[in-house]
């Protein structure tokens, strides 16, 4: 089963990536040259880099902050449920939900998207959140991803935080360390391995990001990402050679992360 669905196709895709649209004509590396020179492809690479950078930093960072500060209030579970909830919503659902948040209408018309509604309250002119290229719209899309995945990071980091022996933190406090210092000198180093694992997980995930972009802008207004590009090559242009090439490139980006995963697994195996 695994061989059929994952191993065989990966090899076959690699093979196809050297062929033309109909997979009959051998074209050498020209698909790869296309992938690294075409303007839309380069936009997609840039956007994916932006996703990796901003998305990963924000989800892990916010997750960490939330894990630590929520531990101090009594209504922890309620807030955690709220922040974790988007995990149960599909990307399609989240896409529609946020399209509505970002909804834009010309100035003077009543604004129905909450962000522009807020702006009009301040008598500022409305912003086309999903159209303003290249920074605003890409960051808005990333914001949706962050909304969905922060809860995941929070849950994992919070478990790690609660695993820290309380005596350790108490001892630091008794010695007169400020909360800030306790966090950076005690909490953070102990949680470092978890943060590292989580970061690689998020990077692997975000490299493959597809649904959010597909539903919200379909890559228009320079919001293209690699996975959406591949879908288009495959179904709109029926160019299997190029689509395969993009898939191979995607895989190549992920391989280093995969090696880290395997190394970690071997270490665990050693420990048990």
């Amino acid at each position, binding site marked *: *089963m*695994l061989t*059929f*669905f*994952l*191993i065989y*196709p990966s090899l*076959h895709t690699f093979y*196809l990536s050297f062929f033309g649209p109909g997979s009959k004509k051998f074209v050498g590396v020209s698909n790869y040259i296309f992938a690294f020179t075409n303007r839309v492809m380069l936009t997609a690479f840039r956007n994916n880099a932006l996703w990796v950078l901003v998305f990963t930093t924000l989800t892990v960072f916010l997750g960490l902050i939330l894990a630590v500060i*929520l531990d*101090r*209030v009594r209504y922890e579970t*309620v*807030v955690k*449920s*709220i*922040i974790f*909830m*988007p995990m*149960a*919503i*599909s*990307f*399609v*659902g989240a*896409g*529609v*939900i946020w399209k*509505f*948040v970002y*909804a834009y209408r010309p100035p003077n018309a*009543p*604004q*129905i998207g*909450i962000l522009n*509604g807020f702006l009009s309250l301040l008598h500022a002119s409305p912003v086309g959140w999903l159209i303003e290229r290249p920074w605003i719209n890409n960051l808005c899309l990333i914001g949706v991803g962050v*909304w969905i995945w922060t809860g*995941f990071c929070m*849950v994992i980091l919070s*478990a*790690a935080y609660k695993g820290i022996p309380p005596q350790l933190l108490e001892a630091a406090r008794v010695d007169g360390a400020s909360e800030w210092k306790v966090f950076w000198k005690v909490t953070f180093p102990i949680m470092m391995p*978890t943060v590292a*694992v989580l970061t690689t997980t998020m990077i692997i995930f975000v490299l*493959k990001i597809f*649904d959010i972009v*597909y*539903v919200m802008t379909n890559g228009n207004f320079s919001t293209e990402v690699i996975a959406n590009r*591949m*879908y288009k090559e*495959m179904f709109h242009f029926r160019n299997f050679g190029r689509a395969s090439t993009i*898939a191979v490139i*995607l*895989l190549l980006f*992920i391989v280093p*992360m*995969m090696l880290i*995963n395997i190394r970690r697994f*071997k270490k*665990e*195996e050693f420990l048990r």
Partner: protein
Amino acid sequence: MRILSRVPLHVVIILIALVWIFPTLGVLVTSFRPAQDVAATGWWTALRIPFQFTQYTLTNYGSVINQGGIGRAFLNSLIITIPATILPIMIAAFAAYAFAWMRFPGRRFLFIMLVALLVIPLQTTMIPILRVFNRLGLAGTFPGIWLAHTGYGLPLTIYLLYNFIGALPSELFDSASIDGASTLQIFFRLVLPLSVTAIASVTIFQFLWVWNDLLVALIYLGGTPDVAPITVQVSSLVGSYGQNWEVLTAAVFISMILPLSIFFGLQRYFVRGILAGSIKG
């Protein structure tokens, strides 16, 4: 004094919680408002008088379910999701047990392969599988997508169950085999009953993943409405009803009902599953 110094903390937390809940709240409120209201005023205006129920209507839901094809799609989603959840979990339970407690040549190597497969992007596998499916007549059929989800779901489900089953005490297995239990007996009488919670959490995972999936369904089912699951249907409504928010929001809400109720009902297992998968030291 202590309470006062904690005020900023509470304010920050409550603000974050509001930011997180507002988008969903907007969709919920909008889905119950008549079309002309939705177009004329922001949904938050309804919150000024939240309990004046005459401003709400159910027509959006009616029209989405009938003309929007969401009723049919909901059914399709169920037909896809249930076998595509049960099948991989059954295989994974056996496989995880084998990986954890049976000695066979290549076990370590196979398992490392499995961990590597966890991160292979679906995208790399689509074209060849689609071709095979086309040749076998599986493309655009329910059995086809059941198989696809099973294949894609196995690495993670095996891995999660392995973490749990591998942590069972080995004395248990020793004493069982001394008492003369066969491997199968050990599996059904010991391993399965002991790992009910783990299996529950993995089942929730797989269920949510299949229910919320868009890409796999788009590729292997195509866009035909008679097999399209709810995610595909909603995303095609986004294309055709772009600005009719009352329709879209109602559709989205129907698609969220099942996953959300599972989430709130079984949150404990869900969290446990996530932790089993990613936290190990």
